[in-house]
Structures are given as structure tokens and as C-alpha cells.
């Protein structure tokens, strides 16, 4: 079982959490200006790396707060957990489209 360190509650078992998909997906500033392909890319297309991956988790059986975790999808090691208003630690790279991965 994974153990995740909730930024507010400390280390807890995976069963207390729910997974929320990829983190740091920036919502387009003006969705109405997008064509269908760009909107679909925002809505449905997610990274699928073999390696460190920033994802959202919610501590549903604890403090009920959302937070972010960087998890290695190959080893399942949780490399970092941090509050959702914090930047991704270490690896933050600002892209031209404003998205941070």
C-alpha cells in the first residue's frame, strides 16, 4: 500500500485518499476562443510519463483537503507532497503557453 504524507495531517495510508488525476493543468484563460481540438486537448489529454508525475490527491477520510504529490510511476515512490497553491518542487518549468509541468 502507498503511504502519502498529507501536508496537513502527516503520513497516512492510501485508503484514506482519492486520486484526482494530473496536477498543474492550467484552465485556458478564454475557453470560448478555443476550437474543439484545443478544448479536447485541455479536457481529455493527459501526460503519461514513466517517471516522476505530479498528480492531485484528496485526503477524503481526513482533513478533506486537496494537495499535490509527485509520484514516480515506475517505482511508485512518492517523491514529494505539497499544498495545491505551491509550485511543483524542484522540477518546475514554465512553458510558453503558461502551463507549468
Amino acid at each position, binding site marked *: 500500500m502507498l503511504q502519502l504524507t*498529507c501536508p*496537513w*495531517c*502527516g503520513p*497516512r*495510508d492510501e*485508503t*484514506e485518499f482519492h486520486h484526482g488525476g494530473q496536477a498543474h493543468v492550467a484552465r485556458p484563460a478564454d475557453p470560448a476562443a478555443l476550437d474543439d481540438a484545443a478544448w479536447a486537448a485541455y479536457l481529455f489529454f493527459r501526460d503519461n510519463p514513466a517517471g516522476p508525475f505530479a498528480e492531485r490527491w484528496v485526503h477524503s*477520510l*481526513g*482533513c*478533506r*483537503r486537496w494537495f499535490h504529490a509527485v509520484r514516480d510511476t515506475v517505482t511508485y515512490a512518492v517523491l514529494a507532497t505539497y499544498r495545491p497553491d505551491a509550485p511543483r518542487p524542484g522540477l518546475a518549468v514554465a512553458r510558453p503557453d503558461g502551463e507549468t509541468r
Partner: protein
Amino acid sequence: MADPTAPGPAALRRGPLDHLSGALRAATVTGPRAVALTALPCRTTTALRAAPDGPVGARLAKVLGAPLPTRCGETARTDHGTALWLGPDEWLLVAEDAAPAPLTALDEALGDAPGQIVDVSAQRTVLELRGPAARDVLEKGCAPDLHPRAFPPGRAVTTAVGQVPLILWHSAADTYRLLPRSSFAEHLAHWLTDAMGEYGLPEVD
């Protein structure tokens, strides 16, 4: 059928475990590994949500007579019961009796700030598990470290016991209060009495 001349709604209250009081008594374990489960009478419970720092936190602390706890696991004794930390901006105020909570004063302390003050007395049931074997019983179905060095009396966490989401409060030495949602109380009571049974038998090496 409730007596229609009874004085007020409080007299009509029925606890979700009232029908199991005999079964809970029968499950009491005595001896060196004693453990007993009781359902405590209904008590006033108030949900508080507010920004913990700043003037609102200070005003709420003034009404309660003590500052609200600020970190996971912490509790604070106040003039109106014990405040349990549920989240960074969320607390549960659990009184020791059914006396009304100071809702109006708390609401005035909150003022226009974002948050809420709600009486949730019917939301949860309070079970008390007491005895030298109480921690052993809980550890069969509860993941957080319950050793007194990590979870001493006076601490409370939101977690699950036997897959039932609840607040687990170490209210005194060898005494744990479990606060599940009322609809989960019966399942939890059966789970706990089943888990308690073995402690009445001699220990096997």
C-alpha cells in the same frame, strides 16, 4: 410510541444504538485485558468553519474561552466543550451534555467573514471504548499509529476504524471516543463487539 405530553423535542430523542444497549453491556470484557463499549448520550455538537488566524479566530476564541487548535491531532478544552481539529479551517465542538451551544455568540464572532457555525448534534454518535485492551481492539482496524507516544490522551484524528470513517479521540488514558456518522454507528458497534470478544479468553503465546 412517544408520549405526546413529553416536554419538548429533547425528550423524543432516540440514540441510534439504544436498541443495542443490552448487547453492548453483554460484550463487556473483564479481567487483565478488560475492555468495555458504551454509547454515550446525545450531546451538543457544533461544526465550526472559519479562517483560523486573524481577528475571526481571536473573536471565536473569546466566545469559547480558549483558542481553537491549529494542527492535526490537537484538541482544546473550551468553556463549551472540546474543540477537535478536523482541517486547517474546520473544527468540531463537542460538549459533554445536551446544553445548547452558544450559536448566536459564535455567529456574531464570525461576522461577515467566510465560514459557518452549525449545530450538528444529530450528525454523529459518540461511542466510548474503555479499558487496558482498548488500543489493541482499535489497532485491528485503524491505520494511524495509536501508541501513546504518537497518540497520547488529548489527541483526536479523522480516520477510519473497521472501514468506517470517523473521528477517533483519545479522551483519557485507555479511553477512546469514536464519533462515526449516526448511520454507521450500528455497523461499528457490531464490528467493535466482535473485535473485543477474544480479550476475555486466556492469551495464547
